């Protein structure tokens, strides 16, 4: 195929001029940057080759880990070489290039070209780093599927990292869109990994379609960007946006054209789809049907933050729009609250983590919208670590207890021999998520919370309160899981799957039967092996160490701020915009206050207190005096809150609502259209065919078969024609 491509290139030697001409403010990047996405692509090819040759060993996993580690290494190298400098653009090859004129905007050009700035760097570091670790984890986790399924898993896994790299490193919106849809595809493939399970297939489909709804927004936003600015390349775009940014900064928000203000609103729709925000969040909890490493990498740490990335990447556009950021803020806050309330009432620990992801993504969007892009990005970064840790711990439990995820059927796991590392890692993750003082999650969440009270905007202080309440709820449900599953009396019940994830394409895998034997009646949980333990330990350490990023580069609000410096999401815009967007001109109001205190300082104490209260409630309800796995003190309390708990457990029936309001009517409409097509559209065609037949039937008797009859008719006809001719000559 490569040969064919090369041949085609030579064949169609239509010159288009050497591309890769650099826009102002960028420098040519080193060639090895393209290896960051290409190495995972090589991983895809290698694992597919393994699948073709039916390799039945862990080789695909090691290849993947190798490729991903190489990619991570290059990302680190890029961090040292490129971060802090101007945007480095490495040109790959021309992708879509259509020109219909010479003027500006008369050429759509989107290349496979990779731009590297601080924002890219931040994302690439944790994407490739976590991908490497999680691939290592998956090598053990997926070991029961060794064979074609194993290859399939790692192929999609690598393809995901490739797509994510395209998304993050793209130098134009169209390549970002390629990555954007590419990660959606991988998400589809991996959620549906256990393809014999109807629920997994349905979840995969739901995720893809929900994402596509968002993608339509992004697509329209891209088209509008092109119409408005005539380019999709960031480097050419930002200089064109700059005047509007300056106008807003100078207080002339009304100078921003309507269309420019509309673009971020459309992008936002895409971001909400990909990052599972209201109203498109319902796919993410269902996505937990996929294998747990996938949930950890794609549906917690990386892919779902793509929406936040999009906002950060196109931050100047968001800044100039009047409505975009307030909408983002409110959607984020409401999603955070809603998802947290649902998370409190679930029993499936993986789903709880999924809702917590939705909730935390809400925080990140708030961070972006509250003009603390550093806070948002920092939260993305810390969240990636601790949420991956949490998911992988859940995965270890699932793996060890035959797919058991119900927190009423597991207890004291962390106290069992061989499970210490899992328990400790879980504790680290939970503390981070709950915002326990001096953890990474604490600092990143505080940056967002404080700015809710600092930034002026429509109801932003209400958002601050919502986020504070949500922080409490988060601490509660996080530690509900911890206190019920990882500590307390040791008690367990295996799940109904033979192993963590049981299905394989082939029923006759004799060599896999060994795995089944141990899950007979005498069930013994099998403790995680070295790979899982190692990864969990590393991630737990990483989660803790992430806090350190808060203390370095103090002049830039920490390491993340340092990275974002010079990128479109650069926080230097903020101060000016606080004034520009706020109604008042007073410094006091612009900087807000929290009961007369500086929010940034007050928030340390307030959020610590709220987090501790949440943990305390969980401790009291789910640990103190609990003797069995199935029940806790909370059970007695639940009836007192009435049906609310049941509603929350039923996820507020949003899925049912969508089904009733959108899916069912559309389904009925489709059937109606199908009938319409059959009866009316095709019916008219058939009627058109029926008409001549009827006419023929009517005039048929005139054809009597008698020769003289025809002759007379003919003679009459001629006579008639003659008469006509004669009349015409008169």
């Amino acid at each position: 195929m490569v040969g064919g491509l090369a041949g085609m290139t030579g064949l169609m030697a239509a010159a288009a001029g050497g591309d890769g001409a650099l826009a102002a403010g960028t420098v040519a990047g080193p060639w090895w940057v393209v290896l960051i996405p290409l190495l995972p692509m090589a991983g895809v090819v290698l694992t597919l080759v393994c699948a073709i040759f039916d390799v039945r060993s862990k080789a695909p996993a090691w290849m993947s880990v190798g490729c991903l580690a190489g990619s991570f290494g290059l990302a680190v190298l890029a961090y040292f070489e490129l971060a802090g400098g101007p945007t480095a653009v490495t040109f790959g090859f021309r992708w879509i290039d259509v020109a219909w004129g010479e003027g500006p905007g008369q050429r759509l050009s989107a290349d496979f070209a990779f731009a590297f700035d601080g924002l890219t760097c931040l994302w690439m570091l944790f994407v490739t780093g976590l991908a490497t670790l999680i691939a290592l984890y998956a090598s053990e986790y997926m070991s029961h599927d060794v064979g074609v399924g194993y290859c399939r898993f790692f192929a999609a896994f690598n393809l995901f990292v490739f797509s994510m790299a395209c998304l993050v490193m793209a130098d134009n919106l169209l390549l970002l869109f390629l990555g954007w849809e590419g990660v959606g595809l991988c998400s589809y493939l991996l959620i549906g990994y256990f393809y014999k399970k109807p629920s997994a297939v349905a979840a995969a489909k739901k995720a893809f379609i929900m994402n596509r709804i968002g993608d339509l927004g992004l697509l329209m936003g891209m088209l509008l960007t092109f119409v408005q600015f005539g380019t999709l390349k960031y480097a050419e775009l930002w200089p064109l946006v700059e005047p509007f940014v300056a106008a807003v900064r100078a207080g002339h928000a009304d100078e921003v054209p309507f269309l420019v203000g509309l673009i971020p609103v459309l992008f936002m729709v895409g971001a909400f789809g990909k990052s599972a925000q209201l109203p498109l969040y319902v796919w993410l909890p269902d996505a937990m049907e996929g294998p747990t490493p996938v949930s950890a990498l794609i549906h917690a740490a990386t892919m779902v933050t793509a929406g936040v990335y999009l906002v950060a990447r196109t931050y100047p556009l968001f800044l100039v729009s009047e409505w975009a950021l307030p909408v983002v803020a409110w959607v984020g806050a409401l999603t955070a609250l809603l998802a947290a309330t649902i998370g409190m009432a679930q029993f499936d620990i993986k789903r709880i983590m999924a809702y917590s992801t939705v909730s935390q993504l809400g925080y990140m969007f708030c961070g972006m919208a509250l003009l603390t892009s550093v806070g948002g990005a920092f939260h993305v970064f810390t969240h990636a670590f601790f949420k991956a840790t949490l998911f992988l711990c859940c995965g270890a439990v699932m793996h060890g207890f035959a797919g058991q995820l119900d927190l009423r059927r597991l207890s004291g796991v962390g106290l069992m021999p061989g499970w210490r590392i899992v328990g400790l890692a879980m504790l680290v993750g939970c503390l981070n998520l709950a915002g326990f003082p001096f953890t990474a999650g604490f600092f990143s969440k505080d940056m967002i919370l404080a700015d809710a009270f600092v930034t002026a905007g429509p109801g932003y202080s209400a958002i601050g309160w919502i986020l504070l309440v949500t922080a409490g709820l988060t601490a509660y449900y996080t530690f509900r899981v911890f206190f019920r599953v990882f500590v307390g009396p040791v008690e367990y019940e295996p799940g109904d799957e033979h192993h963590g994830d049981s299905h394989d394409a082939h029923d006759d895998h004799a060599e896999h039967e060994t795995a089944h034997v141990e899950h007979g009646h005498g069930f013994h949980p099998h403790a995680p092996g070295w790979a899982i333990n190692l990864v969990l330990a590393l991630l737990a350490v990483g989660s803790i160490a992430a806090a350190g990023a808060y203390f370095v580069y103090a002049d830039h609000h920490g390491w993340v701020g340092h990275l974002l410096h010079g990128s479109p999401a650069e926080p230097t815009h903020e101060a000016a915009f606080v004034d520009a967007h706020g109604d008042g001109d007073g410094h006091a109001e612009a900087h807000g206050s929290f009961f007369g205190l500086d929010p940034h300082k007050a928030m340390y104490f307030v959020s610590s207190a709220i987090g501790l209260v949440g943990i305390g409630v969980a401790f009291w309800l789910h640990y103190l005096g609990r003797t069995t796995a199935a029940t806790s003190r909370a059970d007695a309390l639940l009836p007192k809150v009435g049906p609310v708990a049941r509603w929350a457990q039923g996820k507020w029936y949003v899925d049912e609502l969508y089904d009733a309001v959108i899916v069912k009517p559309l389904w009925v409409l489709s059937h109606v259209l199908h009938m319409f097509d059959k009866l009316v559209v095709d019916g008219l065609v058939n009627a058109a065919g029926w008409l001549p037949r009827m006419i023929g039937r009517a005039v048929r008797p005139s054809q009597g078969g008698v020769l003289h009859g025809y002759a007379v008719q003919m003679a009459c006809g001629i006579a008639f024609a003659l008469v006509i001719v004669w009349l015409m000559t008169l």
Partner: protein
Amino acid sequence: MSGSWTIAQASLPAPMDGVTLAHYLVVSAAMFAIGLVGFLTRRNLIIMFLCTELMFQAAGIALIAFSRFHLHMTGQTFVIFVLTVAAAEAALALALVVLLYRRKDSLSADEWAELKG
């Protein structure tokens, strides 16, 4: 249109005195009418066939008359064609009539009325 096919006037015999185009056309029309009436009234296939030939020739006369009148040879060419085709067709038609006669032992056209709608 009339340029290339017109024959030089000088080489033509002088037209008959008093005989005009109308005369030819009357003859032609009469022949055609006889043929038509014969075709419509007779039942014998051979007679009917002869009647069609009569109509053919009527048309031919008209064509030649017009051709002479307009000094344009296309009409005459056309008649030669018609004559040739008619000769071939006569052979075919008579053969068909023989075959039909063998089937029904009759030459009546009314015997053949199966082909009705």
